[in-house]
C-alpha cells in the first residue's frame, strides 16, 4: 500500500508540473505561486455561484432543492471534467511503458491515475458543494453536521461521476478514439463545461423560477442519490447506507475499469510505434488555396490559437442559445419591435468580426516560420490576400452560425436580414483588411510560447481599443439620412464600409506591400 501512495504522489507531481508548464508561466517558484494563485482565484466565482444557488432556492421557498440542484450540477460538472482528464492521463501521457517496468502490482498503476482524477474532482466538488451544505446546515441549526456530513458527501459523491467517466472513456476507445485526438476531446468537453456553467447561470437568474424547480425535481428522479443526500443533510442518517453501497460499487467498478484502460493504453503505446501511412500522390492545388490552407491550419493545429479563437467566437452564441432555452430571452423581453430585434441579431453576427481580430495576429502567428512564405514564388499581395481571406472565412462562418441561431430564435423580416447581412459582411471584410495594416506595422515574430503571440499583445489591445471608432459610420449615416429606416441605415453603413475597404485595400496593395517586404526573416 505504501508503494501505491508513492505512486499517487509521483503522479500528482507530474500532473502539477504539466499543468504549470502548460500555463506558460515557467517552471520556477514564481510559476508555481502563480498557478496556485490562479487556482485560488478560480475558486471565488464557484463559491459565489454555490452561495447564489442556496439563496435562489431559499428565496423561492424551497431550500432543500438547493442541495438537490447542487448534487445534480456537481455530478454533471465532475463527469465533464473527468472524461478529458482520464483520457489524457491514460491515453495521451503514455508513461505506462516505463511505469509497467517497475516492481508494482499492475492494479496500482491504473488506480493511481484515477486517484489523481478523484482528488481533482474532490477539489471542485468541495468548492461548489460545501457552501450550500454549510448554509443548509446553519439553516437547520447544526453547523457541525452541515460541515461534517457535507465533507463526507463531498468526498464520496465524486465516485459515481468518476465511474461514468471511466466507462465513457472506455466507450470512446471502443469507437476508435485514440491518443492522437487529445485536442479534439479537450476542446469538446471544454465547451460542454462552458455551456453547462453559462446555462446554469442563466437558469439561476431567470425570473419566475418555476422552470428551475421543475427541472431540479424532474432530474432528481433520474439520479436517486440526490434524494439520499437531501435526506442525509436534513438529519436522516440511515441514508448513508445506500451512499456507502454506491461508493463501494463504484470503487469495484473503477478497479475493473482502470485495469482495462491500463491494458488499452499499453497496447496503444506498442502499436503507436508503427508509423502512420501517407500518400505520395496528391492532386495539385492552386497556390492561393495552399496559402489559405496554411493560414487556417496555423490556427486550427495550434491548441492555444484554436481555443482562443473558438472561445471568443462561440461565447455570444452560447449566451443567446442558453438564454433562449432557459426561456429568458424571448423576442418580447429582448426588444420592443422588429428594429430592436434586428439590432440584436446584427450585434451578435458582428461580434466575431469585432471581437476576434484574427488579422491583427495574421503575421505574428507564424512566429519563426514566417520566412517560409516569403521566399516562395508568390506575390506579396497574394501572401497578404491569403491572410485576409483566412480572417474573413473564419469570421463569416461564425457570423452565419449567429444568423441561423437568430433566425431560430426571433421572427425576422427578410429586409432586415438582407440589410443586416450586407452590413455584417462589409464590416467583417473591412476589419480583416484594416487589422492587417496594424500587424504589418508591428510584426512580432520572436515569441516562444504561442499565448504570447495572441494575448498580452499590444496589437490586439490597440485593435480592440479602436473598435469604438467604428460607431462614427452609423452615426454619419444617420446624420446624412435623417429619419431613414434601420434597414436603410444598415445598408448605407455597409456601403460606406465597402468604400473604406477599397481605400484600405489600395493602401495595402501599394504602401503596405513594401512595408511587408521589409519584415525580416
Amino acid at each position, binding site marked *: 500500500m505504501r508503494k501505491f501512495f508513492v505512486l499517487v504522489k509521483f503522479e500528482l507531481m507530474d500532473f502539477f508540473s504539466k499543468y504549470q508548464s502548460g500555463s506558460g508561466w515557467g517552471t520556477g517558484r514564481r510559476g508555481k505561486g502563480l498557478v496556485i494563485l490562479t487556482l485560488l482565484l478560480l475558486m471565488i466565482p464557484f463559491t459565489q455561484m454555490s452561495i447564489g444557488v442556496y439563496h435562489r432556492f431559499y428565496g423561492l421557498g424551497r431550500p432543500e432543492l438547493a442541495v438537490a440542484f447542487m448534487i445534480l450540477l456537481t455530478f454533471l460538472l465532475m463527469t465533464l471534467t473527468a472524461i478529458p482528464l482520464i483520457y489524457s492521463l491514460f491515453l495521451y501521457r503514455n508513461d505506462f511503458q516505463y511505469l509497467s517496468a517497475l516492481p508494482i502490482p499492475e492494479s496500482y498503476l491504473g488506480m493511481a491515475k484515477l486517484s489523481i482524477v478523484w482528488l481533482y474532482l474532490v477539489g471542485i466538488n468541495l468548492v461548489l458543494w460545501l457552501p450550500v451544505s454549510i448554509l443548509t446546515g446553519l439553516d437547520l441549526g447544526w453547523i457541525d453536521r452541515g460541515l461534517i456530513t457535507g465533507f463526507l458527501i463531498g468526498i464520496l459523491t465524486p465516485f459515481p461521476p468518476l465511474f461514468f467517466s471511466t466507462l465513457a472513456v472506455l466507450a470512446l476507445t471502443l469507437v476508435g478514439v485514440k491518443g492522437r485526438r487529445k485536442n479534439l476531446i479537450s476542446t469538446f468537453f471544454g465547451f460542454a463545461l462552458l455551456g453547462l456553467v453559462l446555462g446554469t447561470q442563466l437558469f439561476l437568474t431567470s425570473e419566475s423560477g418555476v422552470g428551475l424547480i421543475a427541472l431540479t425535481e424532474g432530474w432528481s428522479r433520474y439520479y436517486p442519490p440526490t434524494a439520499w443526500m437531501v435526506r442525509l443533510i436534513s438529519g436522516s442518517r440511515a441514508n448513508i447506507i445506500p451512499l456507502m453501497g454506491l461508493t463501494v460499487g463504484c470503487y469495484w467498478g473503477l478497479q475493473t475499469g482502470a485495469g482495462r484502460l491500463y491494458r488499452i493504453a499499453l497496447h496503444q503505446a506498442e502499436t503507436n510505434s508503427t508509423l502512420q501511412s501517407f500518400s505520395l500522390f496528391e492532386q*495539385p492545388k*492552386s497556390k492561393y488555396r495552399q496559402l489559405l490552407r*496554411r493560414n487556417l491550419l496555423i490556427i486550427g*493545429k495550434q491548441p492555444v490559437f484554436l481555443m482562443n479563437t473558438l472561445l471568443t467566437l462561440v461565447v455570444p452564441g452560447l449566451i443567446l442559445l442558453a438564454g433562449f432555452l432557459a426561456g429568458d430571452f424571448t423576442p418580447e423581453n429582448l426588444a420592443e419591435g422588429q428594429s430592436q430585434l434586428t439590432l440584436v441579431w446584427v450585434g451578435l453576427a458582428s461580434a466575431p468580426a469585432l471581437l476576434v481580430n484574427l488579422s491583427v495576429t495574421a503575421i505574428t502567428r507564424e512566429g*519563426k516560420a514566417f520566412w517560409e512564405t516569403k521566399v516562395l514564388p508568390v506575390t506579396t499581395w497574394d501572401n497578404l490576400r491569403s491572410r485576409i481571406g483566412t480572417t474573413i472565412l473564419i469570421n463569416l462562418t461564425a457570423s452565419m452560425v449567429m444568423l441561423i441561431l437568430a433566425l431560430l430564435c426571433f421572427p425576422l423580416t427578410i429586409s432586415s436580414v438582407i440589410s443586416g447581412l450586407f452590413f455584417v459582411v462589409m464590416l467583417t471584410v473591412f476589419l480583416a483588411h484594416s487589422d492587417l495594416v496594424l500587424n504589418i506595422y508591428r510584426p512580432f515574430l520572436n515569441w516562444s510560447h504561442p499565448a504570447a503571440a495572441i494575448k498580452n499583445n499590444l496589437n490586439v489591445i490597440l485593435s480592440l481599443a479602436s473598435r469604438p471608432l467604428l460607431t462614427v459610420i452609423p452615426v454619419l449615416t444617420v446624420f446624412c439620412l435623417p429619419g431613414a429606416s434601420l434597414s436603410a441605415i444598415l445598408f448605407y453603413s455597409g456601403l460606406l464600409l465597402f468604400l473604406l475597404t477599397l481605400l484600405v485595400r489600395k493602401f495595402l496593395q501599394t504602401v503596405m506591400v513594401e512595408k511587408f517586404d521589409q519584415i525580416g526573416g
Partner: protein
Amino acid sequence: MLVLNKVTKTYDGEKKAVNQLSLEVAPGEIFGFIGPNGAGKTTTIKMITGLLPPTAGQILINGVDLATSPVAAKRNFTYVPDHPEIFSAIRGIDYLHFLADMYDVSAQTRRVRIEQYTQLFGIYDFLGEIIQSYSHGMKQKLVICGALLPEAPLFILDEPLVGLDPLAAKHLKEIMGKRCAAGGTVFFSSHLLTIVEQICDRIAVINQGELIACDRPERIKNGSNHSLEEIFLELTKDA
C-alpha cells in the same frame, strides 16, 4: 546565374552588415561563401532570397532582377536556411506537397522526387508523422528535401552541413555535385573549410561585410602549401 551588384545592407540606419558586395556565380558552379562569425553571410543570403531588401545595390537571379520581378526571380531558386524553423503542426508529407504546389511540380514528378530524396536522406518512413515529432536533424533533412523537390536552377543553402549526420552530409555533397553536373548552380555558406575546399569550384571570402577574396580554391591558396584554413585565418586576421 547569380549576380550581386554593389549590394549593401545597413541595419538600424548605421551598422553596415554588408558593404558594396559584388559577386558573380556562373551556371554549373558550386560556389562556397565563407567568413568569420558575423561577417555578413546570412545577411547576404537573406537578401538574395528576398527575405531582406538590400539598402542599396542590385541582385539578379538568372538574369531576372529580384527587386523588380520578385516572383519570376524566386521561381529560379530554392533555399535552405541555417535553422529548420518551419510550420510543424502538419505532417512531413503535407509540407512537401505544399512546396510542390508552390513551385508547380506536377503530381507525377513530385511522386518520384519525394520518394527519391526522402529515401536518400532516410526520412521517407516518417513522412506520415507530424513534423513536431521530428528531431532537429530530421527537420533539417525535410527542409533540404523540400528545397530539392522543385529542382530549381539555383540551390541556396546557409550552413547546410551543421547538424547533419555524416551519411546525410555525404549525400548532400553528392547531390550538390550532381546538381551542378546537370547544369544547376549551388551557392552555400559554410565554416567547414576542408569540405568547401574539396567540393567548391569557386570561393568567396567575406569579412566585416566586405568581399576580400573570390576565386578558385587553388588560386586563393596561390600555390602555397598552406591549407585553406591557414590562408583564411591570414586573410581575416586584421579585422
